[in-house]
């Protein structure tokens, strides 16, 4: 497959993933906080097509607790309904709705990725948690690249003492042991910070940490573009610094920004997961892929309930897709610039 085709396929897959997470309220059958204490650590529900009476449309059975865990109560079939009414949610955090992509009638419960200790649907929490994790990744990447563009452009274009100062500052940022720094910084914050507050704090902190590396790349591009003959020619026609940057120099950095974004987003999603895993990120009951994984800190949970690894699978799949995209983008841009 040609790099361009890879870019289209990967972009389409990532767009589908992001859309599904954006429409979590509609796709998830239950609310992220909706508990069912009778279904603590219930395994994924099996979807059936036939029973003793013959073939049917897809249906599920209820889980009944028994001494070995759970067994299916085969006395009642619960058909899966599509575009069904269920728990209230908000589409894009604005429009109230109770329409869900799929669901089953009460008291049946469809748990396609099992349930956690409170009997909350893992699949629904995975989608809602993705909103937090991916939003942190995307917004923090935006902050990083905006800061890196400003710093790299100032250092590369204006040079002299600004260049020396900003690049020395960048080296300092690259040297700091950030994880321990964050743990220390968290100790200075109030014990309880609201979910929205933590979310913003995470975005800002993760976003600010990573500017140094992309800033150095952008500085290099700006530095070489600044002295290109067409930039000198435009200066000779009376082009201002702002014009030269906007029209000639910054467009040169778009390719590297795109590749850096594809690399940074999974890194930052993983950073959020790491911080939340250690309890430094968004706290319960708001789900994020990191705090969902924190249940696995207990050994017996880790070895007994494999379905609770679903957020790790989501992290790996998302990261691999972004890394592949970064890789093909890098190769495509390289071959493009050579041509």
């Amino acid at each position, binding site marked *: 497959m040609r790099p361009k085709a890879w870019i289209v396929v990967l972009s389409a897959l990532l767009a589908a993933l992001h859309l599904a997470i954006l429409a979590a309220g509609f796709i998830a059958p239950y609310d992220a906080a909706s508990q069912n204490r009778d279904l603590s650590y219930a395994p994924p529900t099996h979807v059936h097509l036939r029973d003793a009476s013959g073939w049917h449309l897809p249906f599920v059975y209820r889980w009944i607790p028994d001494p070995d865990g759970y067994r299916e109560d085969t006395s009642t079939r619960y058909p899966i309904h599509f575009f069904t009414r269920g728990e209230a949610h908000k589409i894009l955090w604005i429009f109230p709705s109770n329409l869900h992509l799929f669901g089953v009638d009460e008291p049946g419960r469809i748990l396609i990725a099992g349930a956690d200790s409170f009997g909350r649907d893992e699949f629904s929490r995975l989608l809602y948690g993705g909103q937090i994790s991916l939003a942190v990744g995307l917004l923090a990447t935006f902050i990083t690249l905006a800061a890196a563009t400003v710093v790299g452009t100032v250092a590369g274009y204006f040079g002299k003492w600004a260049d020396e100062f900003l690049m020395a500052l960048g080296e300092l940022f690259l040297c700091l042991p950030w994880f321990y720094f964050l743990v220390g910084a968290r100790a200075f914050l109030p014990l309880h910070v609201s979910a929205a507050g933590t979310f913003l704090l995470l975005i800002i902190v993760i976003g600010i940490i990573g500017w140094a590396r992309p800033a150095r790349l952008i500085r290099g591009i700006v530095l070489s573009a600044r002295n290109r*003959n067409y930039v000198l020619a435009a200066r*000779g*026609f009376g*082009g201002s610094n702002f*014009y030269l940057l906007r029209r000639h120099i910054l467009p040169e950095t778009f390719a590297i920004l795109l590749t850096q974004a594809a690399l940074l987003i999974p890194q930052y999603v993983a950073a959020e997961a790491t911080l939340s895993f250690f309890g430094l990120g968004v706290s319960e009951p708001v789900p994020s892929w990191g705090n969902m994984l924190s249940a696995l800190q207990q050994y017996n949970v880790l070895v007994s309930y494999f379905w609770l690894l679903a957020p790790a699978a989501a992290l790996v799949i998302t990261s691999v897709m972004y890394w592949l995209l970064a890789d093909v983008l890098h190769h495509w841009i390289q071959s493009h610039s050579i041509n």
Partner: protein
Amino acid sequence: MPIDTGSPEKIHGPLLRVRALEKKYWARRGAFRRRVPLLAASKVSFEIPHGKTLAIVGSSGSGKSTVARCVARIEKPDSGEIWIKDRQVAQASGKELMSLRPDVQLVFQDPSTSMNARFSAVQTIEEPLLLQHRGSSEERRTRVAELMKEVALQPEWMDRGVSEFSGGQKQRIAIARALALKPKLLILDEAFTGLDLSTQAQIGNLLLELQAAHTLTYLLIAHDLTLVSRMADFIAVMSNGEIVEQGIAQEVLASPVHAQTRALISAAQGLRSISATQPSS
């Protein structure tokens, strides 16, 4: 065909006067990265009469391009005077410099690096007009079409990307762009380097025709003495940032005084004899 620019009505005294121009760059040297000055141009003085061509020749690193960039005010000289007619441009800045820009234009060595590869021909040629706020978008397109005709390019090609043009065509686009603001002085900074011989001859003829048509004054930076002898009225030879010899082109080439001039002429003759003895493939 060389054009006679010496007719009395075209001579109105010097268009460009450069006096004691100096420019140095700073480099870091040694274990302590000490800043040391590198003198790129020192006590450079010359003048070019209106409608004439002065060629600055010299080996690589002799400071030719630095002088060209200082005259074009892409670089600011450290000291000295640059007069375009009766206006001093050496230390001009801001609005004053902006108003001087249209009078002096520069054509660079390599046309493919002097134009943004993402631009079309029309975007490239209209850039000076855009930056000097000349005309509406439609008027600029009309002017670009005129300029393309003037440099023997088809105006219908104006929306093509510059990377789609050949080397010679790109240099024509660069010349059209330089002419857009109707400059008085055109600086040709090694504008023939990298072009094949027949394209060099075509571009040379085009420049001579344009000079005759618009009474343009040329500052030609070159190292090809054959081309220089054909185009230049005057020659200045540079070595280590200084002008070591200058005068009427034919006289300097016929009876060089300075060792650097003699070296350049013998090098050119050596190259010619090598190319004459090589069998054609």
